[in-house]
């Protein structure tokens, strides 16, 4: 059932002041990477929350979600092991106070669908997370002691490895100082439907399409043009890498010379 997801469709509802959405319906296909962009407060997070909640005119936006052009079965929302959606929200704090290994094991037991051993799944998750963080996360550390960036990295790894869901929703992956380019690279190794809420031009232009939000509504859908794709794999990438290198030097306590950005300017 989970592997057979081909499309998801959002049927538009209404915005904050009751107006209908300009984008009445939008469909994403397996393998699509979508960015959701727009000013703060324009309803980006609300849109992915509606998707995560399998909205069926049951949220204030009155949107509906269809999977493979039909209403999703109620088990998706009731049983985490059947849920085809994994979401990473903007949380940078875990309330559940337990060692990291226990936390991941508890979640793996809930999401598990048989097959791989839980201990192995947990080990793969921590490996994934530690490729995104500066200082490694240890399995016996308390979840509540992790930094914001470590928490974020752990939750991204959890959604990707433990949930292993065909639809992944990510809310501002660029925040909290994790290695964003590495995260994109690791995530995109598996073919899924990805929706990124983002303010980051690199992420937006690496997507197949972007939904522009305005006043709580889906105002526009823009398909990434060839020129935009060229930019994202060319000069924008070099700017991004140069900034990354600069960030890492500052993190490592080095001093910066006026030569640093010569190559991209």
């Amino acid at each position, binding site marked *: 059932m989970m592997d057979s997801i081909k499309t998801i469709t959002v049927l538009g509802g209404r915005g904050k002041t009751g107006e209908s959405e300009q984008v009445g319906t939008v469909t994403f296909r397996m393998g699509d990477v979508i960015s959701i962009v727009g000013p703060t407060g324009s309803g980006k997070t609300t849109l992915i*929350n509606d998707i*995560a*909640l399998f909205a069926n005119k*049951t*949220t*204030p936006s009155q949107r509906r979600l269809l999977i493979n052009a039909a209403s999703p079965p109620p088990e998706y929302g009731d049983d*985490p092991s059947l*849920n085809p959606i*994994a*979401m*990473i*929200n903007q*949380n940078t704090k*875990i*309330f*559940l*106070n*337990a060692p990291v290994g226990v*936390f991941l094991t*508890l*979640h793996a*037991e*809930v*999401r598990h669908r048989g097959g791989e051993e839980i201990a192995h799944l947990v080990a793969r998750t921590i490996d994934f997370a530690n490729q995104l963080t500066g200082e490694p996360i240890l399995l016996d550390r308390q979840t509540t002691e992790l930094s914001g960036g470590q928490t974020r990295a752990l*939750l991204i790894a*959890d*959604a990707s490895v*433990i949930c292993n869901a065909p639809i992944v929703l990510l809310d501002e992956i660029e925040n909290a100082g994790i290695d964003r380019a590495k995260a994109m690279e690791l995530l995109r190794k598996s073919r899924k439907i990805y929706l990124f809420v983002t303010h980051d031009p690199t992420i937006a232009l690496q997507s197949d399409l972007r939904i522009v939000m305005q006043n709580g509504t889906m105002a526009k859908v823009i398909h990434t043009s060839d020129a935009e794709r060229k930019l994202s794999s060319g000069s924008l990438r070099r700017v991004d890498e140069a900034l990354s290198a600069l960030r890492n030097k500052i993190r490592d306590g080095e001093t910066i010379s006026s030569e640093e950005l010569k190559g991209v300017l």
Partner: protein
Amino acid sequence: MKKIVICAGPTAVGKTSVLRHVIRKLLAKNIRVAYLKNDVQYATDAVVLAEEFGIPTATEYSGEFCPDHASVTTLYDHIRWAWSLGTEVFLVETAGLCLRCAPYALPEESLGIVVLEETSGIDLPFKIGPMLTLADVAMITKIDMVSPAEREIFLARTRKAAPNVRVLEVNAQAGIGIDPLVTRILNTPDLAENDFPTLRGHPPLGTCTVCSGERSMNPNRHRGVVAITGGGTRFSGQ
């Protein structure tokens, strides 16, 4: 239609926020609603909800008594009050203190709702006992405050602690997830006219008649110092 809904849960989990959305949705269906708050010594919800919705509301303070004792010995009077106003759904919110009692009347007489919050720790579902396990519906609030991973763990543990309870996740701030609860309320059996409801579970051992196991809500069956409607006490016995 004459339905009783009894809503319990620890302090500050969002019971009133859940009921506020329920009231809004019931009123939109032209159903007459009344609201009672049982608390110890301070609560403004009845005043706030009366102003917001223009519905009849009341507050019962238990004072020196445990609020579950007071709710048992005063509920009958409040039910009569609610019916006298033509109420169709009577929402009763009770303050939960020691979490040992479950204030719900029998399933054929009422709907029992427990409200829990995501941030209360993963052992809570196993700690609180009858308040959860004897409810019909458990509403988990504050789902936007934790990571989806924590939500799924809390959901699974609540279901494990109370396999027969329908567990629903809600964002009571945005009113998400309220509709299935409203449906359950409308499917609750009507309370028979002049029926003294009966507690669903057995209260703990103790010294008052409620604590000693008297489940009838007929105030005349309670002995010792008994809380009376509107505050104050009476003594019943020799």
